[in-house]
């Protein structure tokens, strides 16, 4: 049987070691294989794509363009193929980002990426925080409600449509921590750093979505 291909995008935005290891652990003995995406690709040849990101929105977008990943990825997402964006990999699904400079995003999930603006809030939001699951889903099941995940970010997804927000997290205010449209998912936290709960979520995405 031909193995389905999981693509892991290396947008040169933080190291991909942990997520690579997590994916490998999940797909061993399963009919999947992992391919690292470092340049343009055929959107039809991947069963799932995961894009982890750290650092700035503008930097990730410009890296993806420089590496010729951007166009293929946009086509992939516009086809509503399964995608999991992590941290900045989630944020770039929005229309626009305001980190460093105003940068146009992929425009897949409605919203704007803006800095936490509350006074006296320690920034970055760094550490473990819980999810409030608003809409149950095959990837984000209700068992994740009130579970802790590891966050590190200073910018949040603003003005999202309520129907696109699967879960929120409270830090200063409630912000979207899991967004979804069709088969495209974005998580603000780092599941690859979030111990058992995080691995379960990645597993759900790979095996159930």
């Amino acid at each position, binding site marked *: 049987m031909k193995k389905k291909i999981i693509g892991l995008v290396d947008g040169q935005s933080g190291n991909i070691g942990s997520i690579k290891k997590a994916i490998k652990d999940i797909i061993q003995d399963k009919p999947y294989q992992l391919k690292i995406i470092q340049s343009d690709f055929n959107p039809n040849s991947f069963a799932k794509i995961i894009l982890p990101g*750290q650092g700035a929105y503008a930097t990730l977008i410009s890296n993806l363009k420089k590496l010729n990943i951007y166009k293929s990825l946009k086509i992939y997402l516009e086809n509503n193929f399964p995608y999991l964006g992590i941290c900045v990999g989630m944020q770039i699904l929005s229309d626009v980002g305001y980190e460093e400079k105003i940068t146009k995003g992929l425009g897949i999930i409605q919203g704007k990426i803006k800095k936490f603006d509350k006074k006296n809030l320690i*920034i970055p939001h760094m*550490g473990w925080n819980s999810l409030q699951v608003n809409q149950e889903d095959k990837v984000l099941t209700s068992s994740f409600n009130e579970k802790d995940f590891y966050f*590190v*970010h200073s910018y949040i997804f603003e003005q999202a449509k309520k129907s696109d927000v699967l879960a929120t997290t409270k830090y200063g205010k409630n912000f979207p921590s899991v967004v979804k449209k069709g088969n495209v998912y974005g998580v603000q936290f780092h599941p690859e*750093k979030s111990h058992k709960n995080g691995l379960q979520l990645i597993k759900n995405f790979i095996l159930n979505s």
Partner: protein
Amino acid sequence: MLKTRIIPCLDVVKNKVVKGVNFKNVKVMGNAIEMAKFYSETGADELCMLDINASYQNRKTFIKTVESIAKVINIPLTVGGGISDLSDITNLLNAGADKVSINSAAVKNPNLVRQASLVHGSQCIVVAIDAKRFQENFRVVIKGGRELTAKKLVDWALHVQKMGAGEILLTSMDTDGVQEGFDVEMLRSITSKLTIPVIASGGVGKLEHFYKGHLTKSTGLLAASVFHSGKYTIRQVKRFLDQKGVPVRL
């Protein structure tokens, strides 16, 4: 709600965790990889490891240890010790560190903090500050506490925050190793001024000390001996804090 992080710290020589005051009476506590795995599985929120004997020969072994640890844990890993330039930082991140902790090198060359945060993002740049009381002030010390600098702690902390540090790890040389509690006054002097997270380090000996550390508004509490010696498990600490009403990941 954001949880207070409990962070075990491993002082590493090659691939062994050691305990010793100022490199004297160094005692091997265990294998670094096994201990890291154990802490990750028993509730640590993050792991810190320091190359306390950084030298050219030992560095390769240490980097290998970082790689091995990154493979067996799935919580964030902060690595420090022996960082002098941008390439040291890149090497550690490539080896699997999520954050690097810069100490003396930042004092010698504050621009390194700016460069590193521009290249890798503030979120992975921790500035470790060692400080002690001097006259009416807290002053920054380097070289493991052996060299007093002219820098005032608060000024220095604000400066590195401006330069792009994502977090500060503050160790009080007055309380470190004494096991009589964190340096509450010193911690407060910076948490009241900074907007970035502060990790408290140095002095934990009892459960109550973790609670007092939390009250300083430090969002991470670091300890070594009480965990390595088996005096407390991480869960014990967390249950204690939970009963006190401190948000922790149980």
